[in-house]
């Protein structure tokens, strides 16, 4: 394994984890969406680098999807939704930012311990990337559970999915990566369209997911 290739891949994957942390402490929606766009750019760079060092041209397609769809189209659409609904105000968080960050650090440590221990047989590049990918997935999940607003939940879901694409691109020679990233893009497009459907003011109030709890048990 070429030393430089390894270090660059390592750095790009670590950038994703770092940006996941940056997402965790964003307390305003527009800033959160911008951070997510950066996240998608970092993913595109990372996947393109994997395509280059693995000599797997199909991964360039995945990188292009990440760049164009998740880096540009979705953020622009989300910005429009946020502007239309006039929800530039602060994001409500379930627990404080400090506590969320601490939990995030614990999750990263957990994923390092678990993945590095179980992948001793795998090649070092895939090992690192899988560990980072799991960290990104868990941080995305944390973002989803610590926010109540639907838009930030979607951002959390998408950064979780970025982690999955990172893992899939790091698994050498994995088939169906492009197909899976397309399938995910469809899923995300539907989620965003779903938010558009909720756009009507009074409906959007219920997209504050806490209101869903009202219906958990019974209806009036």
């Amino acid at each position: 394994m070429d030393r430089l290739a390894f270090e660059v891949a390592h750095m790009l994957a670590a950038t994703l984890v770092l940006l996941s942390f940056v997402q965790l402490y964003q307390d305003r929606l527009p800033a959160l969406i911008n951070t997510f766009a950066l996240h998608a750019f970092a993913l595109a760079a990372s996947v393109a680098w994997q395509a280059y060092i693995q000599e797997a041209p199909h991964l360039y397609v995945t990188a292009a999807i990440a760049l164009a769809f998740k880096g540009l189209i979705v953020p622009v659409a989300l910005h429009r939704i946020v502007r239309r609904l006039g929800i530039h105000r602060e994001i409500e968080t379930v627990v404080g930012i400090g506590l969320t960050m601490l939990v995030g650090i614990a999750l990263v440590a957990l994923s390092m311990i678990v993945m590095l221990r179980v992948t001793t047989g795998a090649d070092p590049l895939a090992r690192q990337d899988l560990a980072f990918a799991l960290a990104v997935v868990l941080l995305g999940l944390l973002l989803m559970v610590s926010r109540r607003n639907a838009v930030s939940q979607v951002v959390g879901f998408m950064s979780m999915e970025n982690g999955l694409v990172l893992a899939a691109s790091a698994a050498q020679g994995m088939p169906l990566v492009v197909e899976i990233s397309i399938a995910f893009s469809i899923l995300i497009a539907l989620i965003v369209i779903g938010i558009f459907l909720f756009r009507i003011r009074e409906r959007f109030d219920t997209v504050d997911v806490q209101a869903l709890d009202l219906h958990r048990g019974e209806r009036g």
Partner: protein
Amino acid sequence: MNAPFGNPLLLVLALPLAAAALLAFLPDYRFASRLSVVASFLTLAAAASLFATDLPSHGAYLLVDELNIVFIVLNTFVAFTTSVFSAGYIGHELATGRLTPAYLRFYHAMYQLLVFAMNLALVANNIGLMWVAIEIATLTTVLMVGIYRTHEALEAAWKYFILGSVGIALALFGTILVYMAAQPVVGEGADAMVWSVLVKHVAAFDPALLNVAFVFLLLGYGTKVGLVPLHAWLPDAHAEGPTPISAVLSGLLLNVALYALLRFKMLLAGNAGAIAPGPLLVAMGLASLVFAAFMLYRRSDVKRFFAYSSIEHMGIMAFAFGMGGPLANFAGLLHMVMHSLTKSAIFYAVGYVAQVKKSQKIADIGGLTATHPWLGWGLVIGVVAIAGLPPLGIFMSEFLLVSSTFAREPWLALLLVAGILVAFGALLLRLNGLAFGEPRGGVARSEMSFAPLYAHLALVAIAGVWLPAPLVAWFDYVAGLLG
């Protein structure tokens, strides 16, 4: 793809897909619903003809073996009867103005697409393809749960969407890890995701990686099975969508997710160093059973009530397959078939009940056997069956499971029996209010077709007293495969 089995297998996939494409462009809804019924029937016929092929046989992407053929035939059968039920039910929704013809066209097309996706998940020989198929199935059901566009329906669809997507994402991570485990042994490329290849080589995989992979797969597909504590989407999705979709969700989609879990369980069983997945399934199954049994008492919406009952029964199945061994696996398979038939029958009845009473609240419904004898007694038989009373089919499977568990793990058997009894009490309590006593709610008639309802109940009743010998032999064999 080798020719001898290729044809019926491809038909099982191509028929619903072609029907979905056709239905999307058909403006006449009466004709559309008839076409949907015909397509479902032909799919069922194609599925049944799979029995005549050599088993097991597999290509690069598709696979038929003794295990999935049971699922496919059950899937296409219930899909067929539900399409018959849909035709009448959805027509009534149109008459009352809850749906417009445009939505109806969408509904039938989506229904066939869902059948296609479920069949694809069942016959997929590639774990990546299986994942994609389950994702498509999730998306189509999300769209149908939200079809009424009411406040509650949109909320239920949204919740299902978010939780389902998280589950799907976790399952994908598990799938990638399985590939990582296979890659050093099988080599890079598509072969390392082909199930039949994986099973052959699994003994040489890294057990630690397989363990972690299974945890993710259990969480991911377990969400789709509706196992506690990942069940939160299930009651809402059942209660707010159209009733035929509730029937298909409970009767089929949960099974498909369980099938995915079983495949990976079989994979892990082939590796001596990997954890035994059984105890994990037993724990989650018992938790689902006991939790749902107690939750049944607090329901006041009739569809939500039966949704919790589905969680309970999926728990029993997970428990049975987790216990493993020929007898428990046999009970699990039988229970799955009986539950699919009974629960979809109950939802057929509940759908009509909600239409004549114009309400889903238990408090608004009463004395059904007096006002609507056919409907009321159909519901009574269904609930008696689902509660596990003899001589109906579910009694058989629960009895087998309980007795085999008592012989091996008496303490677990006690918990199992306790859970079943708690649920039994809730079911009979609610049934009493729904079916007997002072009639409450509307007495309107609607033209209903009871054929699907009573066909299912008849099958369940027959299975309770007599199982054909070839079927028993088949299940015995599959139970052996499951390990």
